[in-house]
C-alpha cells in the first residue's frame, strides 16, 4: 500500500508541476495575468510536499525491510544498519533520481520562500523554469526508472547494499553533491527568466549571486567529501583519480567557479552580461550532462549504476531539449543585449576575464579527456582510456596562471589599473613568497623544483590576501584597524577566505605529492616496518563479528623515534550477503601527516599478511582547503547587502538597468 501511495503521489506531483508550477505561471507572466503568476509559489510548495511524500514512502519501504519492493530487495538487507538502509535509498539508480527530484523541488521552495523582495513576474518565471526541469525528471522516473516497482513474490531478504557504499560517506556525499548539482538550476532558471523577459541588468546578477554561491558551496563540500571518502575507502590512498564520474562533478564546479566570478563583474560593473548568462546555462548543462554520463551508462565507472539504453535515450533527449532550447534562446535573445562598461586589459575586469577564460579552457580540457574515449569509440577508431597523466599535464599548467592572477585580481582597481602601481603594492608579497618557496621545502625534507614552485604559488596567494587586507587599513591609525576592518563586507571577506582555502589546498597537494612515502610488504605478528620517520609494529590479529560482515582486525602500534604516536586497526571484511571482501583501512590523522595502513591478503593461512603502509604529509590540508573555500562562500552569502539592496527594490518598482526590447 505504502509504495503505491508513493507512486500515486509522484504522478500527482507531475500533474501539479506541469500545470500549476510551470505552464500557468509562465504563460501568465507573458500575458500579464496576475492570478496565474500568483500560482507559482503555492504550486512549488505542493510539488515539494508530493515528492517528499513519495520519497518518504520509498524510505519506509527500505527501513521496514519491505522486500516486495524490487528496489529494496536489490539494494538493502535486513541485517543492514538503519542509517545505511536510509542511505541505500539513493545508493541505486532509481532512488538517486528521486532524490534529485526531491532536491530540485526543495530548491524551488527555497526560491518561493526567500524571494519575497523580488518582483512577482521574475519569481513566477524562475519557479516555472525550474518546474519544467523537474517535470523532465519526473517523466524520466515514472517512465523508465520507477522506484516503486513490486517484486512478486517478495524476496525473503535483500541482496544488500554494495559493501563499498556501506560507509558514513554514503550518507552525506550524494545528498551534498546533488544539492550542488541541482542548486545550479536556480542560477540557470534566473538566466532563462532574464532571457525570456529581456530584462538583464545588475539587479538580475544581484539576485542570482547568492543562489549560485550556495550551490557552489554544496558542490565544493560534496566533491571534497567524495574525495576524502575515496581516500580511505578504496584503500590505495589516492584522493583524486580523474575518474569520468569525478570529472562529471568537477566540470560544473569549474564552470560554477567561473560563473561566481563573472556574476561579480555583472553586479558591480554591469559587464560580462551575456557571458554570465551563457555560463549560468553552461554550468547547469554540465550538471545535467554529468547526470547523463553517470546514469546512461555511456561511460563505465565505479559510480555508474545503470546501463539501460532506454534510460540513456530519454536523458539524452531531455538534455537536448533543455540545453539545446536554452542555447537557442540565447542565440535568439543574445544579440539584443547591450554591451557592458568598457575596461582596460589591466584592470580587475581584465583579471576576472582571464580567470574566466582559463577556467573555461580547463573545463573544456577536462571535458575533452572525459569524452574523447567516447568520441573515438563512436567514430570506430578504437577503445582507449584517458588517464591521470593527460589530466595532470593539461589541467595543472592551465591553473598556474589562474592561481597567479588570483593574487593580483583583488588588489587591482576596476576599469583601469596600472602595472607599476600593482608591482609596488605586491612587491612584498612576491618577495616573501619567493623566500618561503626557497626555504620551506628544506625544512620539510628536500627541495625539488616542483614543490618549490607550488609552495611559491600557495604563499603568493596568502601573501596577496594579506596585502589586500592591509590596503584597506593603510594610512589608518592602528587603533582604528579593527573598526575599519569591521566595516568591510562579508562578500569581500568571503572572497579572501576562499582564496586562502585554495592556497591551503595547494599546500596539501604539493606536499603529499612530493613527500609521501609508502611500503608494500609482508608482515608477521610481532614484526616492525619502517616508513619515513615512523615504525609500524604488527601487534596481533583477531576475528571480529560485525552486524553484516565477519572481519579480521589487525592491530598496529605506530611510533616515531621510540615515542608511541597511535594505534591503527585496519580490517579485512567479508560481507555475509554478497560474500565480497573489503579492506577497511586504518588512518591516524594529524594536522601535518596521516599514517595509513591497509591490509592486503593473508599469507600462510593468516599467520602473516601483505600490508600497505603510507605516511602522507599534510594530506588533510587538501580537504581543509576545500572546507575553507566553502566557508568563504557562506561568508559571502551571509553578506547583509544582499538582503538590504533587494528590499530597496520593493519600494522602487522599476529597477534601473538595461532593458531589452
Amino acid at each position, binding site marked *: 500500500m505504502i509504495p503505491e501511495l508513493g507512486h500515486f503521489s509522484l504522478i500527482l506531483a507531475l500533474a501539479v508541476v506541469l500545470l500549476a508550477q510551470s505552464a500557468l505561471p509562465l504563460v501568465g507572466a507573458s500575458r500579464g495575468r496576475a492570478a496565474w503568476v500568483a500560482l507559482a509559489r503555492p504550486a512549488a510548495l505542493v510539488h515539494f510536499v508530493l515528492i517528499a511524500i513519495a520519497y518518504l514512502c520509498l524510505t519506509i519501504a527500505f527501513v521496514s525491510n519491505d522486500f516486495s519492493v524490487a528496489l529494496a530487495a536489490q539494494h538493502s538487507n535486513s541485517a543492514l544498519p538503519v542509517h545505511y538502509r536510509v542511505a541505500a535509498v539513493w545508493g541505486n539508480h532509481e532512488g538517486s533520481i528521486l532524490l534529485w527530484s526531491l532536491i530540485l523541488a526543495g530548491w524551488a521552495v527555497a526560491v518561493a520562500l526567500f524571494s519575497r523582495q523580488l518582483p512577482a513576474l521574475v519569481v513566477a518565471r524562475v519557479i516555472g523554469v525550474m518546474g519544467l526541469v523537474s517535470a523532465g525528471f519526473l517523466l524520466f522516473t515514472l517512465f523508465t526508472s520507477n522506484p516503486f516497482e513490486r517484486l512478486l513474490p517478495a524476496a525473503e531478504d535483500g541482496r544488500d547494499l554494495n559493501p563499498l557504499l556501506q560507509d558514513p560517506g554514503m550518507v552525506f556525499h550524494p545528498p551534498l553533491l546533488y544539492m550542488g548539482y541541482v542548486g545550479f538550476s536556480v542560477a540557470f532558471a534566473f538566466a532563462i527568466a532574464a532571457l525570456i523577459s529581456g530584462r538583464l541588468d545588475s539587479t538580475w546578477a544581484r539576485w542570482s549571486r547568492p543562489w549560485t554561491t550556495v550551490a557552489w558551496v554544496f558542490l565544493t563540500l560534496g566533491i571534497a567529501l567524495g574525495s576524502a571518502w575515496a581516500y580511505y575507502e578504496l584503500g590505495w590512498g589516492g584522493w583524486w583519480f580523474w575518474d569520468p564520474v569525478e570529472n562529471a562533478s568537477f566540470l560544473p564546479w569549474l564552470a560554477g567557479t567561473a560563473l561566481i566570478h563573472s556574476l561579480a563583474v555583472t553586479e558591480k560593473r554591469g559587464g560580462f552580461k551575456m557571458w554570465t548568462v551563457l555560463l549560468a546555462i553552461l554550468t547547469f548543462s554540465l550538471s545535467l550532462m554529468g547526470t*547523463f554520463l553517470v546514469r546512461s*551508462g555511456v561511460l563505465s565507472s565505479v559510480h555508474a549504476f545503470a546501463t539501460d*539504453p532506454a534510460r540513456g535515450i530519454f536523458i539524452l533527449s531531455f538534455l*537536448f531539449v533543455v540545453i*539545446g532550447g536554452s542555447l537557442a534562446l540565447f542565440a535568439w535573445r543574445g544579440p539584443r543585449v547591450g554591451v557592458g562598461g568598457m575596461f582596460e586589459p589591466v584592470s580587475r575586469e581584465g583579471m576576472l576575464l582571464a580567470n574566466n577564460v582559463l577556467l573555461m579552457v580547463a573545463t573544456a580540457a577536462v571535458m575533452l579527456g572525459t569524452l574523447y574515449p567516447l568520441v573515438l*569509440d*563512436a567514430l570506430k577508431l578504437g577503445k582507449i582510456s584517458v588517464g591521470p597523466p593527460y589530466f595532470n599535464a593539461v589541467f595543472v599548467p592551465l591553473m598556474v596562471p589562474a592561481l597567479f592572477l588570483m593574487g593580483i585580481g583583488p588588489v587591482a582597481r576596476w576599469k583601469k589599473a596600472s602595472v607599476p602601481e600593482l608591482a609596488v603594492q605586491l612587491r612584498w608579497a612576491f618577495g616573501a613568497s619567493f623566500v618561503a618557496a626557497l626555504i620551506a621545502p628544506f625544512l620539510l625534507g628536500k627541495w625539488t623544483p616542483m614543490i618549490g614552485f607550488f609552495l611559491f604559488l600557495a604563499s603568493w596567494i596568502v601573501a596577496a590576501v594579506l596585502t589586500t587586507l592591509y590596503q584597506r587599513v593603510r594610512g589608518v591609525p592602528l587603533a582604528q584597524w579593527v573598526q575599519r576592518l569591521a566595516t568591510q563586507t562579508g562578500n569581500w571577506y568571503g572572497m579572501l577566505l576562499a582564496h586562502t582555502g585554495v592556497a591551503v589546498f595547494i599546500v596539501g597537494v604539493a606536499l603529499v605529492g612530493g613527500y609521501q612515502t609508502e611500503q608494500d610488504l609482508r608482515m608477521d605478528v610481532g614484526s616492525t616496518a619502517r616508513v619515513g620517520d615512523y615504525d609500524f609494529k604488527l601487534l596481533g590479529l583477531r576475528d571480529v563479528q560485525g552486524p553484516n560482515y565477519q572481519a579480521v582486525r589487525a592491530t598496529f602500534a605506530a611510533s616515531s623515534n621510540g615515542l608511541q604516536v597511535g594505534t591503527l586497526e585496519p580490517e579485512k571484511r567479508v560481507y555475509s550477503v554478497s*560474500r565480497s571482501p573489503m579492506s577497511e583501512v586504518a588512518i591516524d590523522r594529524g594536522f601535518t601527516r596521516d599514517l595509513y595502513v591497509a591490509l592486503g591478503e593473508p599469507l600462510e593461512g593468516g599467520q602473516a599478511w601483505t600490508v600497505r603502509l603510507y605516511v602522507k604529509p599534510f594530506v588533510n590540508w587538501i580537504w581543509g582547503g576545500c572546507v575553507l573555500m566553502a566557508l568563504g562562500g557562506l561568508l559571502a552569502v551571509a553578506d547583509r547587502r544582499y538582503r538590504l539592496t533587494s528590499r530597496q527594490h520593493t519600494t522602487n518598482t522599476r529597477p534601473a538597468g538595461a532593458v531589452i526590447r
Partner: protein
Amino acid sequence: MKRYFVPLVVFVLMAGFLAVGLKLNPREVPSPLINKTAPVFDLPQLHDPGLRVTAEQMKGQVWVLNVFASWCTPCLAEHPYVTQLARQPGVKVIGLNYKDRAEDAKGWLRKHGDPYAAIAVDADGRVGIDYGVYGVPETFVIDKHGVVRHKQIGPITPQALKDDILPMLAKLNG
C-alpha cells in the same frame, strides 16, 4: 550576430556523439589476446591437487576456458549456460578457479553442479593476469592450435551463447 549561435552548434555536435555513444558498450574491451596464442599455464587440479591442468594438454582440440569463483555472483547467473555449453558434443570446458579458496569452490560446485571437464586452481591470480582477466566471469574460446579466437566478458547470456560462442565452436570444429 553569428557568434551567439556558436554554443548551440557546439552542443548539437556533442549531443550527436553522445547519441552514438549510447549504442556502444563501454564494458566491452577488445582483448589483445584475440588471434594470439593462449598463454601457457600449468596449475594444480581443484579436485586432485596432485594432478595438473596445462594449456599444453589441450592442443589438438577446441576448448573453452571459463574463469569463475565461488565469491562471484554473476558466475552463478551464468552457471546454467556454462552447463548447457559443456553438454554440447565436442566441447571441453575447463574451469579456471580464480582467487578462490579450494573448500569454498568445492562447496559451490557441490551445491550448483560441476559442468567442468577439469578445473585449474589459480589461487593467486597469476594466470588470470596472463589472460588479462579484469573481472570475473570471463570466458575464452581456444582453437586446436592453441589460439584464442573469442573472449566473452562478463557472464555468458543465452544470447551470447546462441549468437557468438556456439557458432564460433561450430566453425572451429567444422
